């Protein structure tokens, strides 16, 4: 396998992990966030600092990166998740930008806007695949459990949900924390892949890309989000010669999907249900 193909596969794994996190939050719990790249940034920077400056092994460092993202998500999530709809989206933009600005300006720790170089390239293909497979397994299990149903209930009708006994605020926070963990790990893996990270890599454009991928795949379909990631990552690579059009295409994809097929590629179905359908002939 060539280095180039290997690189694409690694990138696929990294993007898919983040996409799964955002899918849980937006597709399954109905929380529209435009600041999720910030959690990737937190994971990336935490892991970079731990591995480069403190010589900690990448495995615990990546997990700690995820933990830091979760902690921040908890502290800012608890007060802000009371907001619904547009208000939360705006808050997430503000928080995402604020985190990016802090990272840019806290030069002593993060080396500022110039970026953080010299990260050990620990994200090899086996590593990326392993993280992807394990995290995907957990995520699919999660949505096929009572927690998954609880998230969907909060998404579809939060008033009915609370009247059906769900502590909607707690479910939303938990969903945010899990999505932050996934994004944090994804960011940490990204740092280990590029050996270099910069705050501008985690700006609103990146957050929008995460959302676009989930929308494209289908809000409420985890396999759709993974499929969407694959499509968009591959298309990005194909369009690299004309990368100035890349953003234009993202934007257009978002609009076109919302107008023509808001349910995305897969709607709210999963791959498995297509496979199982012929076998499902119950009375």
């Amino acid at each position, binding site marked *: 396998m060539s280095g180039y193909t290997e690189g694409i596969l690694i990138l696929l794994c990294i993007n898919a992990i983040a996409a799964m996190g955002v899918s849980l939050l937006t597709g399954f719990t109905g929380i529209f966030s435009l600041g999720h790249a910030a959690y990737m940034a937190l994971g990336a920077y935490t892991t970079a600092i731990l591995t480069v400056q403190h010589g900690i092994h990448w495995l615990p460092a990546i997990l700690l990166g995820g933990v830091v993202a979760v902690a921040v998500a908890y502290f800012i999530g608890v007060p802000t998740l009371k907001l619904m709809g547009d208000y939360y989206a705006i808050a997430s933009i503000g928080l995402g930008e604020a985190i990016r600005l802090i990272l840019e300006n806290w030069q002593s720790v993060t080396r500022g806007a110039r970026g953080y170089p010299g990260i050990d390239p620990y994200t090899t293909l086996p590593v990326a695949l392993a993280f992807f497979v394990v995290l995907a397994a*957990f995520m699919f*299990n*999660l949505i*096929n*459990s*009572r*927690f998954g*149903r*609880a998230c*969907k*209930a909060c998404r*579809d*009708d939060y*008033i*009915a949900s*609370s*009247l*059906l*006994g*769900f*502590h*909607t605020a707690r479910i939303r926070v938990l969903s945010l924390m899990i999505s932050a963990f996934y994004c944090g790990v994804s960011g940490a893996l990204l740092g280990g892949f590029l050996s270099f990270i910069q705050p501008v890599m985690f700006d609103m454009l990146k957050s929008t890309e995460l959302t676009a991928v989930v929308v494209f795949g289908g809000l*409420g379909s985890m396999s759709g989000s993974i499929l969407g990631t694959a499509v968009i990552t591959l298309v990005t690579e194909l369009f690299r010669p004309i990368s100035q059009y890349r953003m234009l295409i993202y934007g257009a994809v978002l609009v076109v999907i919302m107008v023509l097929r808001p349910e995305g590629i897969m709607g*709210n179905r999963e791959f498995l249900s297509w496979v199982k359908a012929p076998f*499902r002939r*119950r*009375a």
Partner: protein
Amino acid sequence: MSAFFELSGVTKNFGGVQAVSKMTFSMEKGELAGLMGPNGAGKTTIFNLVTGVYDPDEGSILFKGENLVPLKTYQVTARGVARTFQNLRLFQRSTVLENVMTAAQHHVPYSFIEGITHLGRWRSGEKAIRDKSMALLERVGLADRAEQAAGTLPYGHQRRLEIARALALDPELLLLDEPAAGMNAEEVTSLNVLIREIHRDFGLTTLVIEHHMDLVMEICPHIICMNFGAKIAEGTPDEIQNHPEVLKAYLGEEEDE
């Protein structure tokens, strides 16, 4: 000795409008009662006050001796109160079965870790939730539509689904908000039968809101009648039918047309 379910002097104002005024009534365990009144009388507001959607300005709401007023909505549900909605609040995109399972899962706990690993009690838990939900769907006659999206059901079936979902909470007090709204005479009759059966088989204390006289008069031995937020009459169907205030509230409306 306090009753099973009791409202005392409950009052609620919205801005300048008095939606509920010094409402007082009680129900014994296992009763089937009806809450009647013309549109806008405040009936749904009572349900909202009981379930914690609104806080009353005055008064108390006692259930099994505990005051529900300081509790949050999900806590009220946990105490054993379930309700359906006037305008239906199903999870439209989910299947019929999933709607009920979402409610049924409360009484079949397994931990978060078991949830993400699918180990331990996940399998047996999911089976229990599913079996219980299917049983309830059988009860309301929707078992054959279990995998259909809830939003695609005919209206009458959606109402039954909501009842099944409420029952999945294993409640001790069931609040039905206009379960017959939008139904034709035939559907109302079969709904009557269903409600009576559920009340009998589950031994549930049930309070039904309706503003059509037929449903309530036929099945509820105890009726509370409201108008403009206040109680205007309480008693058996015969007593209510001939009560001057009730007649004024209903006929008085028609006279103005």
